[in-house]
């Protein structure tokens, strides 16, 4: 095991990592007189969540992507979708150790690396033991399977949320009832009750984030965009983990204020912005120089990521379970590809993008399975798509030269096209 791998061995080391990260950012913000970039405030929340996950003090739930995190936050349960761990391990450059561990146990290299790294981390004691697990049938079969495996590994109770494909018929009440039962299940296994007043406050906070976040996205559409390619990387999907908390509101406000200021002062996120890109599904989670290359060499900015949007309406605090159900159903990866393509077309138009990049994460059947139809759908509205073949988590498979060449060719093609 290499030095970095050793550093991450064991959940206690993970706790230390997040604690140091949190303390470092806190100190940096204090040193700056309380001023911090929105990305720094976002990263602080990530560090806080990581520290709580690994503290060993909180009641903990490992979940699927569309679990109702604001409800769990209201119950006092620290909760997180497992893919977060895979992304975090990738960003710290340590993921290879854990993927290898999963490989040695017989997990196929054809499976998604987000999930293989999580399984490897669990087997290497680098995942804290949860009190409960909550699987969600969407967005993918692989994610549900990893939760099932973790439930067995940790010998902890598992609850499944079956997310229907759309809101038709009785689908919303069906899922709302499941969420009610899920809350009772969590109470049964953690001893933490669902207090209605706390749930109401949590939902109100969620709605506040919805309102501020909607403005953030509206501002990000400005030409030139106030956002750099990195500013909103993973933003939409990770912010779901903070929903219900005051911290989520602070992060959203930080982005709103920064973007307002940048627009007012005429500053674009990428100076001299020439090309605006839509990024489909996941970013590459490990460190790589390509986003910087896009910005510096081509004045190209990733102005919108697929999941940086609210596909759901504010939740009625008097009917929270139905609203939570609608939100879980609304993720664009759910249902048929038409929903997803329509969403991407909407984003492409709203953000006036020149082109789209689909990294086609190896091992992701639900995402890359739609590759061809997404390409057709975006071409219909005049948006060319670059399909890459990458593993968004496993940096050992990253062939920078090949990806760079393809991106460069794509950018050169886009530069020769008229602006949208």
């Amino acid at each position: 095991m290499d030095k970095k791998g050793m550093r991450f061995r064991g959940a206690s080391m993970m706790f230390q990592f997040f604690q140091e990260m949190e303390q470092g950012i806190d100190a940096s913000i204090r040193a700056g007189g309380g001023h911090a970039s929105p990305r720094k405030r976002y990263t602080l929340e990530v560090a806080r969540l990581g520290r709580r996950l690994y503290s060993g003090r909180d009641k903990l739930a490992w979940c699927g992507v569309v679990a109702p995190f604001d409800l769990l936050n209201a119950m006092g349960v620290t909760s997180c979708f497992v893919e977060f761990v895979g992304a975090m391990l990738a960003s710290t450059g340590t993921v290879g150790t854990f993927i290898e561990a999963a490989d040695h146990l017989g997990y196929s290299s054809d499976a998604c690396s987000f999930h293989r790294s999580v399984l490897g981390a669990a087997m290497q004691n680098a995942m804290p033991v949860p009190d409960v697990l909550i699987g969600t049938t969407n967005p993918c079969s692989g994610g549900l399977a990893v939760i099932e495996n973790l439930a067995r590994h940790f010998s902890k109770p598992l609850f499944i949320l079956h997310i229907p494909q759309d809101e038709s018929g009785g689908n919303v009440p069906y899922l709302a009832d499941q969420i009610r039962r899920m809350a009772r299940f969590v109470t049964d296994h953690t001893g933490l009750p669902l207090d209605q007043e706390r749930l109401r406050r949590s939902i109100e906070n969620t709605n506040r984030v919805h309102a501020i976040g909607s403005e953030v996205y509206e501002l990000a559409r400005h030409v030139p965009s106030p956002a750099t390619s990195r500013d909103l990387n993973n933003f939409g999907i990770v912010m779901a983990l903070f929903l219900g908390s005051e911290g989520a509101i602070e992060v959203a406000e930080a982005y709103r204020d920064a973007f307002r200021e940048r627009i007012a002062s005429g500053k674009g996120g990428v100076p001299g912005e020439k090309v605006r890109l839509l990024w489909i599904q996941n970013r590459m989670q490990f460190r790589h120089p390509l986003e910087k290359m896009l910005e510096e060499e081509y004045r190209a900015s990733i102005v919108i990521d697929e999941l940086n949007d609210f596909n759901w309406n504010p939740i009625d605090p008097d009917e929270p379970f139905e609203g939570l159900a609608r939100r879980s159903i609304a993720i664009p990866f759910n249902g048929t590809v038409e929903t997803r393509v329509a969403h991407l077309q909407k984003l492409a138009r709203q953000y006036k993008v020149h082109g789209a990049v689909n990294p086609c994460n190896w091992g992701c059947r639900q995402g890359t399975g739609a590759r061809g139809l997404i390409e057709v759908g975006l071409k219909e509205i005049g948006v060319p798509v670059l399909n890459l073949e990458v593993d968004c988590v496993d940096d050992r498979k990253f062939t920078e030269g090949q990806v760079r060449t393809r991106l460069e060719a794509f950018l050169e093609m886009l530069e020769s096209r008229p602006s949208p």
Partner: protein
Amino acid sequence: MNRADNLRVGFACAYTPLPLLVAAGFAPFRVLPMTEAPDHAGRILHDNLCPHVKSILDRALAGDLPSLAGMVFMNSCDAMRRLYDAWRTVPGNAPAVLIDLPVTADEASSVFFTGELRRLAGVLETWGGRTPGAEELQRGIGVYNALASRLRALTRRVDSGMLADGPALLQETFNLASTSSFDETAAFVQKLLAEPAQERAPDAVPLYLFGNVLPDPEAFRLFAACGARIAASDLCSGTRLFQKVELDAGGDPYAGLAAALLGRKPCARTFDPSRPVRIGEEILDQARAVGARGVIGHTVKFCDPFLARLATVRRTLQEAGMPFLVLEGDCTLRSIGQQRTRIEAFVEMLR
């Protein structure tokens, strides 16, 4: 005769409610991934999708299908959902419906799935079928159960090793049952059951076979040629497709069919949350019950539901001292033929 009589409705998954298709007046037709059609599915579906769904799309793209009134897809996995999307983009393809399929068999899931079956009944009517009321559906279940019982009898005979070329003939029968009229299959089964019993090959090694899609009878002949006797199998292209539906007397047959489908011997994608990844223990129990000396798991490449659980299956079997061989294939004999040496070595080790 209703105008839907003798019309076929296609399907691709063992969770498809065949009795409902029969009750609506249709002949279920499984679009098996056996084709000489060129490999064009990659134009629409990514290379990392399972060859089962890609072969089905290849058949559609090449026009290698009989006339279909419609195509029923079950939301059994990501790949199947993407196949549904892709299917509808092929000009001239039959209309399609995607029926949602819970992963658990609890009461709420059964109620939901009952609603999905009723929705399917409505769709079948738009495809020219009858609208099956309770009586028609019960009759459809009866027809299906009669065939399932015959197939069960044939399976017992084959598993006992007393039918010459049994496993390959059994797979031929399952293929026939899922692509032809039930009457035709019933007659074929009767003929096979009337065959004189053969002596079981004394030195063949009894194995238990599980997995997903392996429809080519030649694959079973290959196992036999390698010295194996498949003592029992659990495949979605085999026994899992025809399991008797037990109804509560006087109950709603739609609810009964939904509960039976969700509660049947499961594919890896369906599980009991209170016993996660129990599939390993179930395979071990079944292998031991038939006196198997080893287990072969055959899955098509890129099948997430199985890929994600095979490591646990391996560990469970290993801890129990049950030898285990995993074969990954692409639904063709070519891919499994390449594994011949591994199968032979595995069998040799077990002698």
